[in-house]
């Protein structure tokens, strides 16, 4: 189960609002390669993992992604405070505001609502770990793109932290993949699914 600590993993302190940037960054909240996708994917995949190290790592990284989800939500919240109606229209935020005011809604930058179709839980540990490594790289690239379009130093500070964590998670999943492959029968390398076949 979960215990909640009432503090962000890394502080988010944004002084300059920017609703246009918020509309882009929201993709890391409810988009295909965002933190909600990551946490749901890992926390769901862990059940069919056959090895203790995999269960532990997926649980921990899935939990950390929830903490990142909270950070991204905080960024969106702080970027959209105290907006004037003129600013809302000028920054292209009107299409979001009519449906959500300044609430934080899980959607992609395109406006598409979050869907589990963004993730897969294939139930085969090698397959799932490959997806996890890809997911971390996709998230990192999305953060790279955010850094390309943002000139807000407060935002960039938090984004750089989140981007670094993606790289570290990629490393951990890589270690897990090697660990799982080492434990398999080398004769049946691609045929066996240790979660299902005995």
């Amino acid at each position, binding site marked *: *189960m979960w*215990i909640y*600590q009432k*503090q962000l*993993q*890394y*502080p988010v302190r944004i002084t300059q609002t920017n609703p246009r940037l918020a509309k882009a960054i929201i993709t890391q909240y409810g988009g295909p390669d965002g933190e909600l996708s990551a946490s749901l994917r890992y926390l769901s995949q*862990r*059940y069919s993992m056959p090895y*203790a*190290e995999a*269960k*532990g*790592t997926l*649980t*921990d*990284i899935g939990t*950390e992604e929830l903490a990142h989800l909270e950070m991204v939500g905080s960024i969106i919240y702080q970027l959209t405070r105290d907006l004037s109606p003129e600013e809302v229209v000028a920054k292209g935020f009107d299409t979001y505001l009519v449906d959500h005011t300044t609430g934080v809604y899980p959607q992609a930058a395109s406006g598409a609502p979050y869907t589990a179709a963004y993730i897969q839980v294939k139930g085969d540990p090698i397959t799932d770990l490959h997806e996890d490594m890809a997911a971390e790289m996709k998230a990192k690239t999305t953060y790279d793109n955010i850094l390309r379009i943002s000139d807000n130093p407060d935002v960039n500070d938090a984004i750089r932290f989140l981007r670094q964590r993606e790289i*570290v998670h990629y490393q*951990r999943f890589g*270690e*897990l993949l090697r*660990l799982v492959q080492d434990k398999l029968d080398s004769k049946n390398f691609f045929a066996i699914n240790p979660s299902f076949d005995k």
Partner: protein
Amino acid sequence: MCNNCNNCNNRNNCDDYAIPFATWELRLYLNTHPNDTCALELYRKFCTESQEKNNYACLPNNDCNPSRWSWTDDPWPWEVQANRPAWEE
């Protein structure tokens, strides 16, 4: 790596974010390197120091086995063995 934090002169400036984060990083690392006693020692050191601060990375009752990391041991909550009452063993 073991002696870096022991010799650091900047410990008092490690604010409320740095120590919990370092502890969490160690925990992630220990999941895939359960027999790394150096990292385990550092993890336990951070946990003892930050006990009163409700450090999110520290697990209670983690001192059972001094030479390895035991958080990842079976059973896990979704498995049947974890849901049997103790007297039924």
